[in-house]
């Protein structure tokens, strides 16, 4: 009959959505929960392994977390929209090859230095743009679109690799992983810079606030005359740029351009974001939340290795964590969430 405004039919039962007290409680758990988990983990591992407590370990843990942090900053923007991005691995593959082939390397005579990195970041942005356009314009579900783009990225990387590994020669880029200031590599500072910029964009710019609002109530925005399409595409593009930067950083760590440069980052970043409180449903969490998640994932990875757990188990662990986190979040709502695909 008559289409309802905002999907509500005339005659639908109006229900009062909870106000201050109920939400404050839920809020508290969501904001402090992950931090509490982090503290617990640090304490547990600190007690279990003396090596964990060493300054050296802290440095290497932070360095290992740097690339993940940058990837997670990127994916946070997509998650805020309520979409998912499975393309990090593929985009990083292509960008790693790009970095290693543009800056001074063992395969060709190019030596673009910082411009090589800039082009890489831009390339990442192009992949992100592709993700966004396919999702928004072609209306392909984001998991499918980004899965496809990831495959394209891997393919591009494999083609660029052409069987001959491009070794990294550029001293500046190589130096990111080796030069240390106050014990931490330049990678860590790069990551920090990315986090700060990411946080600022998310909290104080139109792109960030709109992305948050889209995840919260996209239909309201559309009704208010806001064109959400461009913002969604922009969010994916920003994510892609982050993946590009992360790829350059990973290349520095690996010392060469590799198709596997992005291996595992898709899943690890999703895990980190969810565990930190940036929910898959969108409109919740943010860059800082995700960073707490990155720390949790990193501490877990580091700690597990130190107590002798196989590194392969880690990935499985991450998978378990994600399933538990999403299931746990949905449990109180289960009677309402009747149709889940």
């Amino acid at each position, binding site marked *: 009959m008559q289409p309802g405004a905002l999907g509500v039919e005339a005659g639908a039962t109006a229900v009062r959505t909870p106000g201050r007290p109920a939400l404050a409680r839920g809020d508290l758990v969501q904001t402090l929960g992950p931090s509490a988990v982090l503290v617990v983990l640090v304490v547990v591992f600190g007690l279990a392994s003396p090596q964990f407590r060493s300054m050296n370990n802290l440095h290497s843990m932070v360095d290992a977390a740097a690339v993940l942090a940058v990837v997670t900053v990127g994916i946070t923007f997509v998650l805020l*929209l*309520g*979409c*998912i991005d*499975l393309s990090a691995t*593929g985009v990083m593959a292509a960008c790693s090859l790009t970095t290693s082939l543009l800056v001074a390397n063992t395969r060709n005579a190019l030596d673009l230095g910082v411009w090589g990195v800039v082009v890489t970041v831009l390339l990442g942005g192009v992949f992100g743009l592709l993700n966004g356009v*396919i999702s928004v314009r*072609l*209306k*392909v*579900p*984001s*998991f*499918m*679109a980004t*899965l*496809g*783009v*990831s*495959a*394209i*990225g*891997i*393919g*591009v990387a*494999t*083609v660029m*690799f*052409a069987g001959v590994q491009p070794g990294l020669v550029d001293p500046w880029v190589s130096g990111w992983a080796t030069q240390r200031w106050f014990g931490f590599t330049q990678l860590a500072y790069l990551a920090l810079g990315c986090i700060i910029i990411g946080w600022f964009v998310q909290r104080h710019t139109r792109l960030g606030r709109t992305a948050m609002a889209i995840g919260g109530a996209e239909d309201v925005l559309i009704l208010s005359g806001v064109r959400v399409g461009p913002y969604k595409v922009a969010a994916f593009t920003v994510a892609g740029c982050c993946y590009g930067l992360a790829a350059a950083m990973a290349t520095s760590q690996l010392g060469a351009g590799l198709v596997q440069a992005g291996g595992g980052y898709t*899943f690890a970043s*999703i895990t980190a974001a969810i565990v930190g409180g940036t929910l*898959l449903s*969108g409109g919740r969490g943010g860059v800082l939340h995700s960073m707490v998640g990155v720390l949790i994932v990193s501490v877990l990875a580091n700690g597990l290795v130190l107590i002798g757990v*196989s590194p*392969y*188990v*880690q*990935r*499985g*662990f*991450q*998978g*378990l964590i*994600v*399933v538990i986190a*999403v*299931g746990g979040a*949905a*449990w109180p*709502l*289960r009677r309402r*969430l*009747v*149709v*889940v*695909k």
Partner: protein
Amino acid sequence: MSQLSTTPAIPDLAPPADPAPRRRFRVQRSTLSGLAPLVAVLALGGALTVANPRFIDPRSLSALADSAAPLAMLAIGATVVVLCGGIDLSIGALASLSSVLLAMWIPTLGSAAIPAVVATAAAAGLLQGVLHVVFRIPSFVVTLGGMTIFSAIALVISDAGTVPVTDTSVTKWAFDRIGDYIPTSVILVLVVVTLVTVVLRVTPVGTWIAAIGYTEPAARLAGLPVYPVKVAAFTLSGTTAGLAAVLLVARTYAGNPTMADSLLLPAVAAIVVGGTAITGGHGGLWRTMAGAIIVTMLRVGLSVVGVPSAYESILYGVLVIGAVAMTIDRSKVGVIK
């Protein structure tokens, strides 16, 4: 049981005032899209034959079908999951894990290792289905998680290395030929597809799956057993992943923790290229078979044309995106993120 003779008399209602429904003389969209995969197979086959006349050779066709078999098998169960409106991203990893288990269990169980592995894979699928249904976790999250967990288990128990098969007689039948040209792997795939298709058609389950995939709220309010059906779909997906592992181990004489990982994307491509809508309801198993052939032919075609295999990944990516974009049900679009 319905007793038509004692139906309470509902007097013939007076002919209603509303008009008869509009007649559709143009061909149904579903018929057109139904023929498309077949047309594509023929067109591709034709093109490949032109590029390389030996393509039509029975030996080469047989090799093509054989190489498509593991992929096709993997895609069978996943198609049913997609028909219900979900997705199973764990099929590759589960097949890899199953291959390792098979290789590891043959020494102790002999031939019984095969049913054991398939049963284990089915149980893994069941578990994912239960988590999806009971905890309301979206299927792509559950299976994404499953993918990493299965992969991790496979890497750990195999110590990240290949596990050779000690007694190849156990799996020989899965990589053999009947006569000169008919690969047993293909027969196995055809048997499974036929079995599943028949079950879906002669029991109410096929209608249930379609209803759940198209309009789940209506299916639920008609009293359909939505949750059991979805769990069954995931269980089937696990089963076919196990069977795919058998096919793979038979031809490589070993189990490997990452052997089938790269089959996920081509399997998904097979499903969507065959015309099964990612939104659910619309599609079918034979379409996926056509899709598997198309995907394999495209791969073969690439090498025939001289394109390096590195481009395969790009091909799959473009295929998947294009096919989904074309088959997506636009009326559900408002709901998709």
